[in-house]
């Protein structure tokens, strides 16, 4: 079971879907990793135990900090989301697709890397290369708890569009076998992704998608999402619940808590007040929903 409330990391890296100005202000505020740690500590104090984060270089510093202070972060876990797409996109502009992949493979000749990478490049099979890249991204989390590992949305949706579905299976299998973790997929196209995962036999997948009252970045439409939540077997995490602030918090969270089967809600915030308010709201509305649900079921 995943925690009901997960803490996201967009706010730490200058990502804000509404305003460049706010994004820059956040990037300035979180220039030092210590500032990020302070916010994580606030979230921890509010009872949040899961940090869902991109494999951004700076997350490595957070990992070091948590590793160095195990007693302070008991029960704290990471949900890594990979890859950090920008570094690959920039590398691709400069070096082409193959060149970009080569750049991020482990530099020195681990026998395993050579074997998997070399054979895979020669046979044109993605398995070897993909698993090597996953391992490279996972290095920073060594020794930390990572029970769910996510495929980032840009790559998920890019491969989904291409019809490169085999990659989802390779990812899911490797994450399970090598890390004993559950595979997760972030997407803006949830109904379509569910079909693709069904096809390649990834069962009961964890899917993190925008789920909000105004249908912001919910491709396939709000109705298709609601239907999928009702009828299909998967473990949904709702993100962008507030649609970057376009919906008032109570109204936004109420909507999501009233939807069936949502396992977790991920949100990002940087102030103590916001973190506390959002966590309390989710807890309160979840409790109300489960009471109504139980009452209905017992009738």
């Amino acid at each position, binding site marked *: 079971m995943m925690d009901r409330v997960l803490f996201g990391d967009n706010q730490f*890296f*200058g*990502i*804000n*879907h*509404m*305003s*460049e100005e706010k*994004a820059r202000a956040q*990037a300035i505020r979180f220039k030092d990793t210590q500032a990020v740690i302070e916010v994580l500590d606030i979230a921890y104090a509010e009872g949040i135990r899961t940090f869902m984060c991109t494999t951004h270089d700076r997350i490595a510093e957070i990992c070091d900090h948590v590793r160095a202070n195990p007693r302070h972060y008991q029960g704290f876990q990471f949900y890594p989301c990979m890859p950090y797409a*920008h570094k690959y*996109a*920039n590398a*691709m*502009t*400069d070096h*082409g*697709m*193959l060149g970009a992949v080569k750049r991020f493979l482990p530099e020195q000749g681990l026998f395993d890397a050579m074997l998997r990478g070399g054979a895979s490049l020669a046979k*044109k099979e*993605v398995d070897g290369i993909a698993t090597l890249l996953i391992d490279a991204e996972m290095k920073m989390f060594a020794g930390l708890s990572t029970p769910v590992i996510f495929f980032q949305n*840009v790559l998920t*949706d*890019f*491969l*989904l*569009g*291409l*019809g*490169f579905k*085999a*990659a989802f299976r390779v990812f899911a299998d490797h994450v399970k076998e090598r890390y004993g973790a559950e595979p997760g997929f972030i997407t*803006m*196209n949830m109904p*379509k992704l569910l079909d693709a995962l069904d096809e390649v036999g990834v069962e009961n997948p964890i899917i993190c998608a925008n789920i909000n009252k*105004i*249908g*912001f*970045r*919910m*491709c*396939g*439409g709000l109705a298709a999402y609601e239907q999928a939540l009702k009828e299909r077997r998967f473990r949904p995490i709702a993100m962008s619940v507030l*649609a*970057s*602030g*376009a919906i008032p918090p109570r109204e936004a969270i109420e909507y999501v808590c009233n939807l069936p089967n949502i396992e977790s809600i991920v949100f990002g915030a940087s102030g103590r007040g916001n973190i506390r308010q959002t966590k309390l709201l989710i807890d309160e509305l979840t409790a109300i929903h489960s009471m109504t649900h139980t009452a209905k079921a017992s009738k």
Partner: protein
Amino acid sequence: MIKVAVVGLGKMGLSHLSIIKAHPDVSLVAVCDTAKYVLDLLEKYTGVAVYSDYDTLLQQEALDAVIIATPSSSHGPMVRAALQRNINVFCEKPFCLDVDEGKELAQLAQSKGLVNQVGYHYRFDAAFQETKRLLDAGAIGEVTHILAEAYGPVILQPKGATWRTRRSEGGGCLYDYAAHPLNLINWYFGRPESVGGTVLNQIFSQETDDEVYGTLYFPGGKSAQISVNWSDESYRRMTTKLNIWGTGGRIYVDRQECQVYIRDNVAVPAGYEPGWNVRYTTELTPEVWFYVRGEEYSSQLDYFIRCIKEGRKENVNSFASALETDQVMAMMITDSEQGRHVGEYTPVVRSEPSIMRWLHRLFGKRIMDFHKKIKK
């Protein structure tokens, strides 16, 4: 179903491929690139037909449309070959490095009645569209000046050569970055009569520009200025923003929001009020059928397909409109090469001995100040 092929599988080509393949009205017939490894992978894992030669692709497949995302210097001949076979064309920007060739191709597409579109995706971004709507409605009165900026972290150190590092092949900050804000200026203001003060500077690149500045002059004394730098690491990714001043207010717009200040001397459009108004992308953006990296990328391809399917003729981002931007860029290159600048206004210097004038030219004002001090 519209039968489509994607030609050129770099960053933009792959992005277009992913989006177009997911389109419900499209049958993706084939892809074409010279990189055999990429072709082999796509063939193996997605089952698409692959071609390493463009002419063979055109000969062997019956296509309704091609998406051309090859290096810019090859756009001209490839677009021509497709048009001659009556194939509708979506071409990446910039359209044609050779303006005369661009003119011919725009006329050819027009005369054949084919859908012709260039990938200036900002015209499909909701915030920039809202700005167009506001300007057309006269929301900020008569526009007098536009400041258009774009910054981002593309070239941050000297690098090995690819087509993107050579202007002759369509690489550089002007063609890659500045083309976007210039295209928006064309959309909002039309084509300038002239350009001046163009700076095309190298920062890290050897064979092309990394920063672009300049002024565009429009009829009636209106002007626009452009400031673009793709060697700016302080931006996480490309950011394009415009400030537009009018007699009745000001608009600030980027891809995420549209901030509008409206004075009480103009008719306020419905939904707006005098003073500051802010519209965010979250409320402005219509839903797309499939999302990879921004609604505008999906919308522009959806529009292209719909124009073909429904025989629509309005043609947003037509070759002819993209040609305006090519023309402005060509004018800016000419302007920067001519390099006519007005020298410093130095009446005092005239009474100074010629050696001082020479020193002044070399060291600027400080040497004159120093000279004055000594005289005292």
